């Protein structure tokens, strides 16, 4: 990979981390409401996988921890932040919030708050890609907890049966909210669970961006070339709680958190680039400074300055606002 791309990817991950941490601050200031699920610690997975797909052609869908997936898919960060602020300029015009970021212009088809619900939606997006005869694919990001839903098994069966071009990315961050994986799941290696559907699968380090890029590249190629679905598992760790309300001390130790902090994906990749001579300490400082500036003076400012939705528009978007009267009516009673 070219040095410029390596630097860009590092900057993206630093940007994603700062975006999420800035959301934390805005939440504490009551600028952001509802539930907020932060992605800090898992950046290498979304960054690496989505680097290997075709932006605006392939479909991407995920759960409620969705900000970074949306931005990496091409949704403007300022619109994502405006959505979190509940503004009309937000990516869902303030109707969705943190858990429901959408940007169909880049084929980011949403974040969903029902655990496991995106599995069949992703398979449906893949069905559409195949139906139209394109080589586009669908990519579904979900956590390990989602694999205990019925939709997991139902969808894996149909995706394999129908050779759908879908890549299931399992971000195994070890916890389903506060329940550690070995307390909820009989088989903790998630990639093994799709074997009964004859689906190709593998498990990789999710903290090392280069490992993610290499593994995802192969998996995407497998799916795109018509070999059927692929289930790829990345071992990772969220540095914050499940959302803003849980106390991690109740379910995991400081020692465990410290161990994973050593494998922070941004630190690992930054150190690697410095060691390789691609980057200097001064470059890193400059990137961090630049990101802080962009988030504060572009992303947050845009969200702060944007108008709230109009209350008179409350009922917009429930149904098609401009339906064709040939199909809808009204019926004429004599």
């Amino acid at each position, binding site marked *: 990979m070219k040095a410029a791309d390596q630097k860009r990817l590092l900057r993206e991950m630093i940007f994603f981390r700062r975006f999420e941490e800035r959301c934390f601050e805005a939440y504490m200031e009551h600028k952001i409401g509802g539930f907020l699920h932060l992605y800090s610690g898992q950046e290498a997975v979304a960054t690496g996988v989505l680097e290997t797909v075709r932006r605006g052609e392939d479909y991407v869908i995920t759960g409620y921890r969705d900000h970074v997936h949306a931005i990496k898919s091409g949704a403007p960060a300022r619109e994502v932040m405006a959505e979190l602020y509940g503004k009309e300029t937000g990516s869902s015009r303030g109707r969705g919030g943190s858990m429901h970021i*959408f940007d169909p212009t880049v084929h980011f088809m*949403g974040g969903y708050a029902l655990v496991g619900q995106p599995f*069949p*939606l992703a398979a449906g997006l893949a069905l559409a890609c195949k139906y139209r005869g394109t080589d586009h694919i669908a990519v579904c990001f979900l956590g390990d907890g989602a694999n205990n839903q019925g*939709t997991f098994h*139902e969808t894996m*069966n149909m995706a394999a049966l129908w050779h759908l071009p879908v890549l299931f990315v399992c971000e195994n961050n070890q916890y389903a909210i506060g329940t550690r994986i070995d307390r909820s799941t009989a088989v903790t290696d998630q990639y093994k669970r799709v074997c009964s559907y004859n689906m190709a699968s593998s498990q990789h380090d999710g903290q090392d961006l280069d490992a993610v890029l290499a593994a995802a590249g192969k998996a995407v190629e497998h799916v795109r070339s018509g070999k059927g679905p692929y289930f790829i598992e990345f071992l990772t760790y969220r540095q914050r709680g499940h959302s803003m309300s849980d106390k991690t001390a109740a379910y995991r130790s400081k020692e465990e958190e410290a161990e994973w902090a050593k494998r922070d994906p941004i630190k690992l990749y930054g150190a690697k680039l410095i060691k390789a001579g691609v980057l200097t300490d001064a470059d890193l400082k400059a990137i961090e400074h630049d990101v802080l500036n962009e988030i504060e003076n572009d992303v947050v400012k845009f969200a702060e300055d944007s108008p709230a939705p109009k209350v008179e528009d409350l009922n917009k978007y429930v149904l098609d606002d401009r339906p064709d009267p040939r199909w*809808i009516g009204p*019926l004429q*009673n004599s």
Partner: protein
Amino acid sequence: MAELAYWEAIRRAHDEELANDPMVLAMGEDIGVVGGTYKATSGLYQKYGDKRIIDTPISENSFTGIGIGASMAGLRPIIEIMSINFALLALDTLVNAAAKIRYMSGGRVSCPIVMRTPGGTAHQLAAQHSARLARVFMSTSGLRVVTPRGAMEACGMLKSAVRCNDPVIFIEHERMYNLREQVPDTEYFRPLEGAEIVRKGTDITLIGYNWSFLLCMKAADMLERDGISAEVVDLRSLKPLDRETIRRSVEKTHRVLVAEEDEAAVGVGSEIISVIIEDCFFALDSQPVRIHAADVPVPYAANLEHAAIPDEHDVYQGALKALGRI
């Protein structure tokens, strides 16, 4: 004009829409090779192939979700769920996803699916195959719910439902599939919205939908023999509801009965009567009457099943009550 059974009308709508738009496909359990439990897709697998007529595994929630996902990317799936009881398994994708995606994406993503399913009691199918449940979908923002009363409506409304950009819950009835009706030979559409005054009258308004509409029509004949002129309104669309047509009829007749095959609590009848009280309370000359099922899981034994489910005699008696004749 040709006389078609209800199931043939559904089949014709599929055939015409599949031929009209390559993005239309159908999916469900046993709809392809077998042709559908109620024959509603018979012969279409042979005509359109397995790409467009998809036999699914018994996974209601996820095959419905696959249809919804495909619709988000521009396809127009007609999803058959074999019984409305099984649609409960798909409520997550229908209610939490299809109904809400347009809204929670700020109008940027739509889900143009049709979910067809028979709801209603048939003949001794017992508690787990006799649900009606229209009220569940009727209470969900973001869905359209339609209940075609016969072959004419079934064909025309299904074609409209396929072309509409909203998720449509299309509720058929197991006892109606073999009812026959004259249907135009040439292509036609029936609108998804609007209640219809199917029989004009002056003394009382009888309101029903799919099977309960047919009970109202039979009761109107019985009332006519007593010299009573009943107006019969087919709701057609449970969501959105045509409040205006209901109001106009009640303001004309001043008495009203609502018939439903489902249990009463939090049901179609409760909703319609609430609407009447809100919109035209002072037009009423007597209290509204609800005809509905007994508050029990549907029994197997024929006599118990009969006792649990309303028929035209119950509607007739209810109308006499509203008219102060009993």
